């Protein structure tokens, strides 16, 4: 079966492509890895005041979960890295000192002194690579074993507990299906010369698409927008193993809406540490919560409509609008080119039902200019 013979396959291809076009590429990923390892070498190298604490750099956040997304209106990605220092947090006078030490080591290094962002962030030190990405280095101390850490907050001068490793493991378990299962269910014949978008797990795509939807719909009110950790947690909590992106998103949206309380607000607790309310900003801003609730209900309606509207153009335009993306049109163009190739090689037919297909029965679709039954004469 070809991709345009199946609405679910067609929609899924567009969704995969839309998300894939917004995520970090393989090349950029490798570059980022190389760069943060270099930063780790500097932080742990000779002359570094942090060397004694064996700094260990590792990815966290969307880089670790595989849900990176180019921030709205910018070409640069924000990539989060953890820099774990083997020191008892109780021995540090002020939490902000960890950030200051990190800034000091990088700021006095020839390569990084101009790249360290002057603006002081509450929990990270930012290193800028123009036109590519920022690396946000988050220093922390271990809290026992099992990935639990203490993170310094400069603004409040407090230590906050965290466990990004456990969160990532939880997310992976929630992702449920494997890539093998996803690919096996697709069963779509390739179109000649058409390169399908690369596949990620449905839950990863749902997170990327929801983050993008959030960016678009809260574009003029960034302060009211739900945070990425809230979106990621909600998606993973409500996903239940669907192997197509469309079905996964349908399930997540329906389930979130069912969970919206009649009074009060939805609370999104850290699944690996219930003491932490990831959605606490909704507690302080009812307006922001109401906007989220109203808009997610609207998104659900628009999502269900994709199953009912007719026309490749209609479906692709709706998805383009939801995510402010040019990718759906690119998918159509590439598929159209493949259809032309199939016509030229007489592999396309029209079934008696009036459908285009690659089949052994049906009427051959030869382009005009080919003598009926004869050779091409132009």
């Amino acid at each position: 079966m070809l991709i345009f013979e199946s609405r679910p396959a067609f929609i899924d291809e567009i969704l995969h492509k839309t998300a894939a076009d917004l995520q970090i590429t393989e090349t950029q990923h490798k570059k980022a890895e190389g760069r943060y390892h270099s930063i780790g070498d500097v932080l742990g190298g000779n002359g570094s005041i942090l060397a004694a604490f064996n700094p260990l750099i590792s990815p966290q956040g969307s880089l670790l979960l595989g849900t990176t997304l180019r921030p709205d209106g910018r070409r640069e990605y924000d990539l989060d890295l953890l820099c774990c220092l083997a020191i008892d947090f109780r021995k540090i006078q002020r939490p902000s000192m960890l950030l200051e030490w990190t800034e000091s080591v990088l700021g006095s290094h020839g390569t990084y002194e101009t790249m360290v962002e002057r603006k002081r962030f509450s929990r990270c030190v930012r290193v800028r690579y123009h036109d590519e990405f920022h690396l946000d280095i988050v220093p922390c101390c271990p809290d026992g074993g099992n990935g639990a850490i203490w993170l310094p907050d400069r603004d409040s001068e407090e230590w906050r507990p965290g466990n990004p490793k456990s969160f990532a493991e939880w997310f992976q378990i929630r992702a449920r299906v494997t890539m093998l299962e996803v690919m096996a269910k697709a069963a779509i014949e390739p179109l000649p010369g058409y390169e399908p978008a690369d596949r990620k797990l449905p839950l990863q795509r749902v997170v990327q698409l929801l983050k993008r939807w959030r960016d678009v719909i809260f574009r003029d009110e960034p302060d009211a927008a739900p945070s990425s950790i809230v979106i990621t947690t909600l998606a993973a909590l409500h996903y239940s193993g669907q192997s197509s992106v469309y079905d996964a998103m349908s399930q997540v949206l329906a389930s979130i809406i069912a969970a919206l309380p009649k009074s009060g607000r939805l609370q999104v607790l850290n699944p690996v540490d219930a003491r932490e309310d990831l959605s606490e900003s909704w507690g302080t801003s009812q307006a922001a919560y109401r906007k989220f609730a109203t808009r997610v209900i609207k998104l659900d309606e628009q999502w269900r409509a994709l199953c009912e509207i007719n026309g490749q153009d209609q479906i692709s335009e709706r998805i383009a609008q939801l995510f402010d993306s040019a990718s759906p049109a690119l998918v159509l163009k590439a598929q159209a080119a493949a259809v032309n190739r199939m016509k030229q090689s007489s592999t396309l037919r029209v079934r008696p039902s009036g459908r285009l297909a690659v089949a052994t029965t049906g009427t051959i679709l030869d382009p005009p200019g080919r003598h009926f039954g004869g050779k091409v004469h132009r």
Partner: protein
Amino acid sequence: MGKYIGNRILPLGTQFIVMRQVWPSFVSQWRHSAVISTGPLQPTDMSPVYQVQIMYRLGERPEVVVVSPQLRDRPGQPIPHVYPGKRLCLYLPRANEWTPAMPIAKTIVPWACDWLYFYEIWHATGEWLADGVHPREKHKKKRRRHRPTRAVTETRRESHS
């Protein structure tokens, strides 16, 4: 519409029979000197079911229209590759890409399905991406018979008198 001058013309009866055999979902009627076939084409699983009507008079160019759903322009862009009355332009007449020797069922109908596929693509992208040479815009303008200018006419009168 244009007429073909040539030796081979499939009889209307043959066109009618082949249409009914190849496209059983089409309703074909043979009235006087024309075969009119109406039926469904749905190029993809995502497409609406288009009701397409083909009207063919012996020896003339088949006329193909989409009865439903209504074909729509894009904002600021009229539908390309249609003749007046939104008759579909499926081939290059002057290159004899279709002649009355060809069965409509095996040419016009699949080309119409192809046209509808690319119509949807055009709607989403603004580009007509079907392969091949297409008639230019001038075929949409009315043909004018050349009329000599007044000055030339008077000169001729003078020369004859």
